[in-house]
């Protein structure tokens, strides 16, 4: 049976179309629809319930050593209040999950993982735990709201003092107050837009949800569902676990080299990635030049042969044309390369383009 987030009743009250996702009942969209919600985030502001995400605390003298061994990024030079993206790999270099790490103190970290991978992740973390370090899965006690869009800051400023709003992208304020409710406030998101993510208790979540929607009305804030979350991240060229990466795709193929520090000492997956040698395939962006939408799992052809497969695809409401991401043979990954994707028995033309498709000004 699917679980409900603490905001379930709010979604129903807001007219959300509820669907099962990653074990939770969540709104795929509200009455306004995916396109309106997407455009609100690009031009004004949108509010998402992302309470389904998993949260794990690492604590102890060896917490840092554990993270540096378990994850591909290097967490050595972080400051308190900083956030860093990383991948968690299997020994062979395949991806367990991608996640973000919050440094609370030198000996205490918050890890935020994908909802659908939470139990697998925690088991993997437990299995590789060493030294003086404990982990705690606090997912069931934490709600998370994402306030995203160019007006997000103006809305937050009405409910929070200036010093409690994290000034830098990928930084956070641990003990902030939004509308009087205790929150961890971080400048992060999954939309390609300026915005914040607020972590708070389940109990306060519905109150803050309603307060934010009310306060943000003049700034055009509307609630947004999973549909817009997906089109926004796709338009921004952001990878999603289970699509652009999984246990059979290594992070360098996904183009996540910035989060894989091969120069640091041994970590899980390092040998596996090294053993693969030069890349034979890579994630690319495809701009659809023909008619129709290329979605996931479409075979991609060039020079009369199959050269890969799409991993995600949709119509981009802000850009006004469809895009897809695909894993293609390395010889076909140069921007400007012309390809075709097979969709329902018909070929749709597309061109390899640089990622991201959309970048905020």
């Amino acid at each position, binding site marked *: 049976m699917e679980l409900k987030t603490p905001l379930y009743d709010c979604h129903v009250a807001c007219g959300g179309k509820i669907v099962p996702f990653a074990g939770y009942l969540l709104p*795929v*969209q509200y009455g306004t*629809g*995916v*396109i*309106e919600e*997407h455009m609100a985030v690009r031009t004004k502001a949108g509010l998402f319930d992302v309470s389904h995400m998993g949260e794990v605390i690492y604590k102890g003298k060896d917490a840092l050593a554990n993270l540096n061994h378990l994850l591909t990024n290097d967490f050595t030079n972080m400051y308190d209040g900083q956030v860093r993206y990383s991948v968690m790999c299997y020994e062979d270099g395949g991806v367990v999950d991608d996640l973000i790490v919050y440094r609370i103190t030198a000996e205490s970290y918050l890890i935020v993982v994908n909802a659908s991978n939470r139990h697998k992740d925690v088991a993997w973390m437990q299995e590789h735990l060493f030294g003086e370090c404990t982990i705690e899965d606090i997912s069931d006690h934490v709600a998370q709201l994402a306030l995203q869009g160019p007006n997000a800051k103006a809305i937050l400023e009405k409910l929070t003092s200036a010093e409690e709003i994290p000034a830098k992208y990928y930084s956070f304020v641990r003990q902030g107050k939004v509308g009087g409710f205790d929150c961890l406030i971080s400048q992060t998101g999954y939309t390609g837009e300026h915005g914040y993510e607020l972590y708070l208790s389940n109990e306060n979540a519905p109150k803050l949800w309603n307060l934010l929607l009310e306060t943000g009305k003049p700034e055009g804030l509307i609630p947004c569902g999973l*549909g817009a979350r997906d*089109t926004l991240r796709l338009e921004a060229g952001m990878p999603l676990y289970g699509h652009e990466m999984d246990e059979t795709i290594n992070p360098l193929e996904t183009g996540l080299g910035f989060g894989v520090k091969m120069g640091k000492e041994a970590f899980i997956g390092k040998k596996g990635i090294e053993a693969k040698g030069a890349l034979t395939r890579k994630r690319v962006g495809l701009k659809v030049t023909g*008619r*129709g*939408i290329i*979605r996931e799992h479409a075979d991609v052809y060039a020079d009369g042969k199959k050269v890969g497969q799409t991993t995600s695809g*949709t*119509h981009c*409401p802000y850009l006004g044309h*469809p895009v897809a991401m695909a894993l293609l043979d390395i010889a076909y990954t140069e921007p400007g390369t012309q390809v075709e994707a097979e969709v*329902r028995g018909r070929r749709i033309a597309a061109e390899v383009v640089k990622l991201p498709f959309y970048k905020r000004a």
Partner: protein
Amino acid sequence: MNTPKELLYSKSHEWISFDGDTAKVGLTDFAQNALGGLVFVNLPEVGDEVEKGKTCADVESVKAVSDVYCPVSGEIVAINEELLDQPELINQSPYEAWLFEVGSISDKEELLDAAAYEAFCAEEE
């Protein structure tokens, strides 16, 4: 839900309007609402043979692609080319935004009148 009395309806949520020897086919208000904002329409070509109950067009929303089934057998005599550039017209006014027109009609599905179609939709919801 808007269900004009003068039209007939299929269980796959197309409306059909007979006019002499030909019939125009479109998507119902119920269908466009369930599909959400449409961003692409693929239509048959004039001269294509169509068969009742078979797919002959599709519409795409941001979320998914959906087949359009032809309620009659015959031959396509016209398509609504305006929809190729403005698929949102289907969302805005589903009963004006016809998709295609069929002539030489030789057979048709069992169709519902407005009251029966509304009852059918109520069950589906």
